[in-house]
């Protein structure tokens, strides 16, 4: 109590000019209590399904049927064992492969293009920029049929490689946009100096601009990583055999396989959700800035 009082006193010393009519203490306390109550109500809404998932994943089918609400009698890990013994690890590696390759390509191609848009003059610069930005407005499913046909004809249908083209293509517009804005803010003098020292455009880009763009590149990478990791519609059209499935398709496959064994299904869903949730907990601020970057800048 006393610490928060001290803090408040310190604040009013810092800003003596602001004098507001203070509401009575009991009113403020009541207000705070109400805020915490609301916070807890939403915590229940947000977390309850996840809690239910966790609870069920550690139960046996028998325990689940007898009492869906009770805690499991002992920490039963057999459900996770059966998920891990299934094709789950394969789905996981497939997803890692597709997402990592797509993100690397998106970052490479979009930073090159953004550098040209931000730092060079050439005929058609504005129309080309708008043309690529228009991609942000395109609903993915209008391209689904042509891309399916194209993949069939190119012979990449039902391979992981088929996903990379569309993932990179649809990742480019927002990434080019974010990076162009960022590159434009880097002081030009730094690059001029390296040019005078005899660097080519590419050397300047690679040695001066890219190292300065770390935060923006991370934002772009994380935004696209989450997108590629969760992508569902292209994967379900372009992949057919379970060996090629990415995690989202794999989860659905296991859902069908485990059928009415609810605890096994919940263990699958839990394991499938863990990578992105852990990623978020570790890189919280970056993930948030990645997800809001595109939205707030437009």
């Amino acid at each position: 109590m006393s610490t928060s009082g001290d803090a408040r006193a310190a604040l009013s010393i810092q800003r003596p000019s602001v004098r507001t009519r203070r509401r009575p203490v009991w009113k403020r306390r009541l207000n705070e209590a109400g805020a915490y109550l609301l916070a807890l109500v939403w915590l229940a809404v947000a977390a309850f399904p996840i809690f239910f998932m966790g609870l069920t994943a550690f139960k046996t089918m028998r325990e689940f049927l007898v009492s869906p609400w009770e805690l499991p009698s002992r920490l039963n890990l057999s459900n996770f064992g059966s998920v891990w013994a299934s094709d789950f690890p394969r789905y996981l590696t497939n997803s890692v492969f597709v997402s990592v390759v797509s993100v690397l390509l998106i970052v490479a191609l979009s930073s090159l293009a953004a550098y040209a848009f931000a730092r060079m003059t050439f005929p058609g610069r504005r129309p080309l920029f708008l043309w690529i930005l228009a991609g942000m407005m395109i609903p993915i499913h209008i391209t689904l049929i042509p891309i399916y046909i194209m993949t069939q004809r190119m012979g990449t249908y039902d391979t992981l490689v088929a996903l990379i083209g569309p993932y990179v293509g649809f990742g480019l517009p927002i990434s080019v946009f974010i990076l162009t804005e960022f590159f434009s803010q880097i002081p030009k003098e730094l690059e001029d100096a390296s040019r005078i020292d005899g660097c080519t455009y590419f050397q300047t880009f690679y040695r001066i601009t890219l190292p300065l763009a770390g935060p923006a590149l991370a934002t772009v990478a994380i935004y696209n990583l989450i997108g590629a990791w969760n992508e569902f519609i292209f994967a379900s059209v372009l992949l057919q055999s379970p060996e090629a499935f990415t995690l989202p398709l794999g989860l659905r496959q296991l859902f069908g396989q485990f059928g009415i064994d609810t605890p096994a299904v919940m263990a699958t869903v839990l394991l499938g959700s863990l990578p992105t949730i852990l990623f978020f907990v570790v890189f919280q601020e970056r993930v948030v800035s990645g997800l809001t970057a595109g939205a707030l800048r437009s």
Partner: protein
Amino acid sequence: MVRGVPVPRGAATKRMWTAYAFLLPAMVVYGTFVAGPILLSVYYSLFDWSGVSRTGTFVGSGNFGRLLQDSVFWRAVGNNLRLVAGSLVTQLPVALGLALLLTRGLRGMRFFRTAYFVPHMMPTVAIGILWIFIYDPSMGVVNDLLARLGLHGWMRGWLGDERTALWAVIATIAWQFIPFYMILFQAALVGIPQELHEAAAIDGATGSKAFWYVTLPLLVGTIRTAVVLSLVGSLKYFDLIYIMTGGGPNHASELMATHMFKTAFNQFQMGYGSSVAVASFLIAFVVSALLLYVTQFRREA
């Protein structure tokens, strides 16, 4: 022009080609997988074509004539509009409320923010499967709760009932997307300079008054962004509907995107499926353009 660098003659041309070289890889991939397919979609929509044979039969605007008569398509359009309305009415106000709650400077709100955001980090397929169990008629949590509350008459197979299937998925979509808009609003709220609130407080604007006359007007830009995102997202929505109901029962939760998907990839009518895709793109485009025009106009008036 790059200032400060001595440019020899002929360098301008060289610089131009350098710029094109930087752009080329991105343009090739974008053209192949985004821009090109859109044009192809329009082209395919003029054919009666299974996609299996090399070419189809040219039918001109025939597919679009058929589309006008397609009651499932119009039902899907209606459902898309219900999804738009449901998303705007539930997601944005709740998200704004949560953002206000989180930015009040109370202790422990960082924990709540992290916890609130977790649903948005789950893969959509995982969310879909989880909620299928929550809505399950016999083992589901929703019916179990209703039974415990004595509301036996309210129990039903939420996803199997024509009256509730669409709304049940809309609720799940809200669960997934409220955290996203919450973070968006929170970022905007944090960006409001503290001085403005202090100045308003001196003028006697506190509590709800401060919200209506200070905070809300400063959030208009972000709210408009959120409305556009939510609207465009709802008009092209696909994932959870496809996973949880497949558009059923009896097309009760069919969306334009699921209808297109099934026409093309279950019934192998690639030509007609393309015309559904083109039409849904046009509808989404017109509605968003209208919205942008109206909000823009409002701002200037």
